[in-house]
C-alpha cells in the first residue's frame, strides 16, 4: 500500500470525486489559481477549470451562503474555509441554514455540501487563528462533523462526506498535512459516524481524534515501553458520535483518558466522559481523566503556546493518574 501524506490523501479524494461527479465543485479563498492555502487543490484549477474551482472574495458568510444556495439547486459544493476561526463569520449560515433546512422544510430539500476547514493551534498564529472549537459545531443536530486523524481515514471519510446528502463540516489539522500513512488505492469509502480502535491494548483506553490521535499514539508507544498497553480509540466523527468501540474498550480496561486539542470546559471530552459514566457506570474503576488545552486564549510565544497545548507528557501523566 502506498504511504502518502494527509495532504495527498485529501487531494486525491477531492480529485476522484470531482472526476466521478460533475456536480461536485470547489469554492473558497485562494483555492484556484494559487492552489489552496495548504496546497491541497494544487493543479485543480488547470484541470477542472474556473467553473468548478472558484476563487472567492475574503468573505466567509458569502462562501457558505453561496455553497448552501448551490447545494439547494442540486450541486455538491465543497466550500473551503481557510481556518475554522473564520467559520464564525459564517456561523449563522452554517448552523441556522445548512443544518436546519432539511428539517424545517419537511425534507423538501437537502443541503449536500461539505465545508472543509482547518482546526487547531501550534503554528504560532496567535489566539484568534489557533482555536479548536470543534465541539461547538458538533453541538448542532443537522450538521455532521468529521475530523479524521490518519491519511486513510481522511480520504475515505472525505469521499463519504462529498456523497452525503447532509451538510458535513470536515475538520482537518494543518500540523497533520505532512503526516504519512498507508492509504489503499482506489475506491475506499469510510462511513461517517464510526469510531475506530487505532491501536489495540488492554490496560487503559485513550479516546481521541484528529491531531491528538497522533499525539496519543506517540504516548501509547512510550507507555508500551513501560509495559502498559493503551488502547487508542479514534472517534473520527464527532457527530454522529459512535460510542460503541469506546464503551467496548472501556468495559475491558475499566480506565480511560480522553484527549482533545480544544479547551476542557464543555468539550468533546466532557461529552465522551459523560457518556461513559451514563452507559458503563458499573465498569468504572477509576475517575476518568481529560487531557485538553489550558483554559487560556492560546499564546503566540512558541514556548507558552506549546505549554498550553496538550502534549505527550500530559497524556502520560493522565494515564498514570487513572492506573
Amino acid at each position, binding site marked *: 500500500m502506498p504511504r502518502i501524506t494527509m495532504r495527498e490523501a485529501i487531494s486525491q479524494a477531492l480529485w476522484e470525486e470531482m472526476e466521478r461527479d460533475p456536480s461536485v465543485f470547489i469554492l473558497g479563498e485562494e483555492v484556484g489559481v494559487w492552489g489552496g492555502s495548504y496546497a491541497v487543490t494544487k493543479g485543480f484549477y488547470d484541470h477542472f477549470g474556473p467553473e468548478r474551482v472558484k476563487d472567492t472574495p475574503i468573505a466567509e458568510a458569502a462562501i457558505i451562503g453561496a455553497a448552501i444556495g448551490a447545494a439547494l439547486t442540486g450541486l455538491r459544493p465543497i466550500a473551503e474555509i481557510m481556518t475554522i476561526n473564520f467559520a464564525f463569520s459564517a456561523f449563522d449560515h452554517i448552523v441556522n441554514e445548512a443544518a436546519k433546512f432539511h428539517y424545517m422544510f419537511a425534507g423538501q430539500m437537502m443541503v449536500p455540501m461539505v465545508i472543509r476547514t482547518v482546526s487547531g493551534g501550534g503554528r504560532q498564529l496567535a489566539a484568534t487563528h489557533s482555536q479548536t472549537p470543534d465541539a461547538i459545531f458538533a453541538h448542532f443536530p443537522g450538521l455532521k462533523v468529521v475530523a479524521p486523524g490518519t491519511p486513510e481515514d481522511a480520504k475515505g471519510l472525505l469521499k463519504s462526506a462529498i456523497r452525503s446528502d447532509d451538510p458535513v463540516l470536515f475538520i482537518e489539522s494543518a500540523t497533520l498535512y505532512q503526516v504519512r500513512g498507508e492509504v489503499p488505492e482506489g475506491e475506499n469509502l469510510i462511513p461517517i459516524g464510526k469510531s475506530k480502535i487505532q491501536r489495540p491494548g488492554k490496560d487503559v483506553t485513550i479516546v481521541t481524534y484528529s491531531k491528538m490521535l497522533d499525539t496519543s499514539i506517540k504516548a501509547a508507544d512510550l507507555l508500551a515501553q513501560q509495559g502498559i498497553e493503551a488502547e487508542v480509540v479514534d472517534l473520527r466523527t464527532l457527530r454522529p458520535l459512535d460510542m460503541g468501540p469506546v464503551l467496548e474498550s472501556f468495559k475491558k480496561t*475499566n480506565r480511560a483518558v480522553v484527549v482533545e486539542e480544544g479547551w476542557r470546559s464543555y468539550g468533546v471530552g466532557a461529552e465522551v466522559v459523560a457518556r461513559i459514566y451514563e452507559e458503563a*457506570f*458499573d*465498569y*468504572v*474503576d*477509576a475517575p476518568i481523566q481529560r487531557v485538553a488545552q489550558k483554559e487560556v486564549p492560546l499564546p503566540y510565544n512558541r514556548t507558552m503556546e506549546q505549554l498550553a497545548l496538550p502534549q505527550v507528557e500530559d497524556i502520560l501523566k493522565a494515564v498514570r493518574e487513572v492506573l
Partner: protein
Amino acid sequence: MAEIVNMPKLGFDMAEGTLLRWVIHEGDQVSKGDVLAEIETDKATVEVESTYEGVLLRQLVSQGTVVPINDPIAVIGQPGEEVTLGANVASEGALKKPIATEQAIDAAGGYIPSPEPVLEIQVLPVLAEAPHASPLARSMATEMGIDLRLVRGTGPGGRVTKKDIELYITNALVPEAAKSPSQTPIAGVAPVKTFIRETRIIPLPKLRAAIGRRMADSTQQVPHFYVTHEYDVRALTDRRKEINLLLEEDDKLSVNDFIVRAAALTLLEFPNLNASIDLIANTLIYHGEINIGVAIAVENGLLTAVNHNTDQKTIYQISSELKKLVLRARDGKVRPEDIEGSTFTVSNLGMFDVDQFTAIINPPEAAILAIGSAKQVPVVVNGEIRIGNRMKATLSVDHRISDGAEGARFLQALAKFIEEPLRLLISF
C-alpha cells in the same frame, strides 16, 4: 392535577421496598386497579396497584432502586400535563411525614424547623461502613457476594478497585495449607476426590434475611414454653374421606383445613392465646379478629399466609381460600392482606412424616401450633392394645402472656373439635 404515587407501606415493619419492575411504562394509560409495578419487600414480591386514573407521566425511580416507604415513585395525570414535582411532592411530604416533625425537637426542647422535603430517592448503601469503592469494584463485589468491608483498598484514598477485588478472590481461593511452605504431602494416601463441588457465596436473599431477623428476635425476646398433646384422629380421617368423596379433585379438604378451623373455634374460648403484648405501652392487646396464619414453604423460605376471621368461615371456605393463598405465595405474587394481620399460626409438617416438632412463635402473636403426622400406632384402650390413629400437636406459647396450664387446657379443648370433627361442621 397530577397525582403522586408513593412507595406503599405493605407491612407493619416495612421501611423500604425495592422497585423490581415497572409494569406500566411512561406515557401509558393507567386505570384504577392496574398493576403499576412489582415491589420486593422483606417478605415477598407484591404488585402495586394504581389508585388513580390517567396517564403514567413519569417514573421517578429506576428498576432495582430501594425506596423508603412513602417516597414518591411515579406521577399519574392527564396526557401532556405539566409535571411540577417540587410543588406536588412538597405538599404531599408535609402532610405525610408527621414523624419527622416529632423528631425535630432539639435537646433544649425547642422545635427545629423540619427541612424542606426534597425529591431525592435515596439509595441506601448496602453496607453502612463499606469503604470507598469504584463502581466496577462494587458491581464485582455484589456479583460475587463479597462484603466490601473485608477488602483492603489500595487505590487513591484507600479506594477499593478491581485489582483489590481480584487479589481478595485469589487469597480467598488459596487453601491455608497451600500457603504454608513447610507442608509436605503425606505419601501413600490414595486420592479420594474425583471432583470438588463448587463453594458458592450468594447475597442473602431478602426473605431469608427477614425470616432470620424475626426468628432470632422471637427466640431471644419471647420466653417460649411448649405443651404437646396426642389426638385420636380416626374420626377426622374417616369424616374427611367421606366428605372428599363428594368433592371434585381440586376442592378436596386437607387435614390442615380441619385443624385451622378447629384452632380458630378453640381460640374463641382462649382470648389469651389470641393476644399480643405491647411492652412499650405496657398493654395486652386482645385481638377482636381470629386470623389464622398458615406457614407456607416457598422458594428461599416460608411465608405466613393469613386466613382472616377464620372462626366465621366453613371448612370449605377456609380450604379454598388457603389453596389460592398457597398458589399466590409460591408464585411470589402475594398481596399485602395475604401476609398481614395473623393472630395465631398453625405450622403443619404432617406431610413429611414427622412425629412432632416445636415451632418458633411468629411475633407479635402469643402462640403457634405445630402439627405432626397422623399415624397408625399401637394404643391401649380398656387394657388392650389396639391400632389407633394418632397425631401429635405441640403448642408454643409466649410465657409473658400465658402459662402452662392454659396452654394445656387449650390443647384439651382443641381435642373436642379434632376428635369429634362433626362439631366443626355445626359450630358457628
